[in-house]
């Protein structure tokens, strides 16, 4: 349709368009020329010489009424209407993005405001002021009347603008922790700035040129269009054209201003580095040793399909991303996210190929360099995208806490390990590795852990069976849940968040816990972290014991802290006995110990 040579149809239409433009501009150009009519010339051609006689005439107050006064009033009114139109339309445009009671009513009022003939609005406001005994004035009644004309246009333009606004920008801002106000201030307004300027200048000219709505509302002093209209009936010299030329020149100046600021706005709207949105975190935060001079950077790139690496390739090509600094890519693809969602592997492969090319290494080497986590399931509000995590060298050490990223990899799991203790343990140590990699010391500073975990397929299950191993589940879909669960628990173990409650009901957890103790005591760094949590745990338990005793009007023979240790030691000991020989310990032994400790 849009290719190839231009046929006769094009030239015919182009000719028509040319005539239309001539039709639009011809008369205006005619009066532009005639406004320079010589002093003896008349309202029509021929020109009797060329002069600026009529422009001089225009500024003599007696000759043509109050030109400068009405011009000033129209300008002031136009500017006021412009400001109110931009603010009220933008704000209403935001409101209309959510459903609210009365939205239809207000929408239809706006439409009504457009279609009710201007002269009726003018008449109504004039009558209203008369009935109330108020004097109409250009800055009250006429201002209101103009707003009923500029606001509907503003609102409709904002609707159109917001309908075309890519909400992913807002989602991205929110994902990065911006508040609602920051999102509007630093994302929505800069992107929409050209449109807002457009709405403003549109509002200005609508008001500046408005005639009918000013008719019964402007009161004692005329606005410019009223003044001009008055002149048409009693001025029969080219001074009329001079006036036309001057007002049109003002309109053109406004349009030129609009275009200039529009172009400028479009360039200035997107600053190279917007102020960082406030991180959503508690105090303490993401500290990293000051000796580490690195800076984490996250980019969100939209993708059109699983194989779409163009946005990333562009970012690399234009130097926005140095491929060597990429440590992870986390993304969403169009697939359904189920067992046979091959878009994930497809997307991962595409990324690997791109990175291998950029880094000039074999695709198989990428696995060790960059953690690629693709997941499917972009139904609903989420759009396919890539989050690219980079770790760049920084020239200066960071002043305060900031984002730090680390990567850890587990070994490959065999089928029977998926969803079981081995996966939990391996994941826990990978998380510990990732924390070290990021330079994060305290688990309290870990805010987000993203895991890509394996699932069971029919082939893997068969392969395990051939080795005589059993898998956690034969249901491949269910294996995804188990694998995720094991990973989540691995994270919890590494961060010291394991639920002791769960351990009481399942001996596997006690076993795991015991294993973790050993792990923690062997690894000094894990031990250090763990001991910190352990101490907090002791304090909380002691406080709990104290609270229970006070609440029950009993008193302890030992200080609360000592009671706590006795109970803890007893329960741990009992747990180990139960683990070795289930049912060997007397029931409620712990309760009896507790009774002995109190009086």
């Amino acid at each position, binding site marked *: 349709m849009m290719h190839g040579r231009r046929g006769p149809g094009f030239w015919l239409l182009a000719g028509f368009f040319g005539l*239309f433009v001539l039709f639009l501009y011809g008369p205006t150009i005619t009066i532009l020329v005639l406004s320079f009519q010589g002093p003896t010339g008349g309202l029509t051609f021929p020109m009797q010489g060329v002069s600026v006689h009529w422009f001089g005439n225009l500024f003599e107050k007696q000759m043509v009424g109050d030109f400068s006064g009405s011009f000033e009033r129209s300008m002031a009114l136009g500017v006021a209407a412009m400001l109110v139109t931009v603010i009220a339309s933008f704000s209403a445009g935001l409101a209309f993005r959510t459903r609210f009671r009365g939205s239809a009513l207000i929408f239809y009022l706006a439409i009504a405001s457009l279609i009710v003939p201007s002269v009726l609005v003018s008449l109504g406001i004039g009558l209203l002021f008369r009935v109330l005994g108020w004097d109409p004035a250009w800055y009250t009644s006429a201002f209101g009347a103009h707003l009923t004309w500029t606001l509907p246009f503003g609102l409709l333009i904002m609707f159109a603008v917001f309908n075309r606004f890519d909400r992913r920008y807002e989602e991205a801002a929110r994902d990065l922790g911006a508040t609602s106000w920051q999102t509007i201030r630093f994302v929505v307004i800069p992107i929409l700035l050209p449109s807002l300027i457009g709405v403003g200048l549109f509002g200005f000219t609508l008001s500046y040129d408005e005639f009918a709505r000013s008719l019964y509302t402007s009161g004692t002093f005329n606005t410019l269009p009223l003044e001009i209209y008055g002149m048409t009936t009693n001025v029969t010299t080219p001074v009329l054209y001079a006036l036309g030329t001057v007002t049109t020149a003002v309109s053109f100046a406004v349009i030129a201003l609009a275009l200039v600021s529009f172009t400028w706005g479009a360039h200035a709207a997107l600053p190279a580095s917007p102020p960082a949105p406030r991180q959503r975190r508690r105090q303490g935060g993401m500290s990293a040793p000051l000796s580490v001079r690195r800076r984490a950077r996250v980019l969100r790139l939209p993708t059109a399909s699983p194989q779409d690496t163009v946005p990333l390739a562009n970012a690399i090509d234009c130097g926005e991303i140095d491929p060597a600094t990429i440590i992870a890519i986390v993304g969403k693809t169009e697939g359904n996210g189920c067992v046979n969602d091959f878009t994930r592997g497809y997307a991962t492969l595409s990324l690997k190929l791109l990175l291998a090319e950029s880094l000039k290494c074999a695709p198989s080497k990428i696995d060790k360099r960059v953690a690629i986590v693709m997941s499917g399931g972009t139904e609903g509000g989420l759009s396919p995208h890539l989050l690219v995590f980079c770790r760049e060298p920084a020239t200066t050490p960071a002043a305060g806490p900031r984002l730090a990223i680390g990567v850890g990899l587990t070994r490959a799991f065999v089928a029977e390990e998926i969803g079981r203790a081995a996966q939990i343990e391996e994941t826990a140590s990978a998380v510990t590795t990732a924390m070290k990699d990021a330079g994060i010391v305290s688990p309290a500073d870990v805010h987000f852990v993203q895991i890509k975990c394996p699932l069971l397929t029919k082939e893997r299950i068969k392969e395990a069976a051939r080795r005589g191993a059993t898998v956690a589940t034969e249901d491949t879909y269910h294996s995804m849940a188990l694998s995720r669960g094991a990973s989540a628990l691995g994270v919890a173990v590494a961060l010291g968040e394991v639920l002791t409650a769960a351990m009481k009901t399942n001996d596997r957890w006690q076993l795991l816990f015991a294993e973790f103790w050993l792990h923690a005591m062997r690894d000094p760094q894990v031990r250090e972290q763990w001991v910190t949590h352990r101490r907090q745990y002791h304090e909380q338990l002691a406080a709990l014991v104290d609270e229970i005793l006070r609440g029950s009007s009993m008193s302890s023979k030992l200080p609360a802290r000592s009671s706590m240790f006795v109970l803890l030691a007893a329960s741990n000991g009992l747990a180990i006995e139960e683990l070795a020989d289930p049912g060997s310990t007397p029931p409620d032994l712990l309760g009896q110990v507790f009774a002995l400790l109190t009086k």
Partner: protein
Amino acid sequence: MKRVSAWVTYLQVAPLALVFLLFLVVPILTIVVVSFFDYNTTQIIPDFLIQNYEELLLSPVTWRTYAQTIEFAVITWVLTLLIGFTVAYFLAFHVRSATWQTVLFLVCTIPFWTSNVIRMISWIPFLGRNGLANTTLLQLGLIREPLEFLLFSDFAVVLAYVHLYTLFMVVPIFNSMMRIDRSLLEAARDAGATGWQALRFVIVPLCKPGIAIGSIFIVTIVMGDFVTVRMMSGGQSASVSLMMVNAMSLLQYPAAAANAVVLLLLVLFTVAAMMRMVDIRKEL
């Protein structure tokens, strides 16, 4: 995404709603109320009379004026639709570079940003008895005497309407056209449609919302107009609004108000009929 709480939404929409309430709803209600008032040469007297409506609707002048206004509206509508659609079609489908599209679109819209009164005045040296049109035609020998119908006539009124308001057709239709998925046109072509068939069966149906919006603008503007009629017909033609303005200048406010109510009902009825063709809110 976090839901914005309701009161924030209401606060955001409040300024707009307030303006419409104070400067649209209340004034229109005032017109309705005043249309039942009594009046004499110096003042209006609160009352409940239907006399204003009786006088208005029983007068043949009223019916003639309404007929003329509707005629102007229909003629203008047809002309602006044909011109507007063609211009929009050229811009949307034949201008290939986005920059040129923007530039040419701006060229069309710029005159709209200038004063209507001035744009009407600018026809005088063009269409007058000694104007450019007559002079040229005389010089070419196409006519022997100056054409009198060019200025201060119904022709001039329609010409001015088309000149002033075609843009209201161009913009919404252009907007609709730009939203047409270009692959639909490829599909039409692949399915063997000629250019004309693609226009008739793909583009025109998809432009209906734009056409409806443009038509609503044109019809309501022309039906509510009095400046153009007064200036361009030289006082020879009438329109409903002009009738109303004349009543106002004679201080017959209730009579003008009654006329305003009738005109408002006519306009709303026409628009309601057009709105049935399109859900405007969906089409923005």
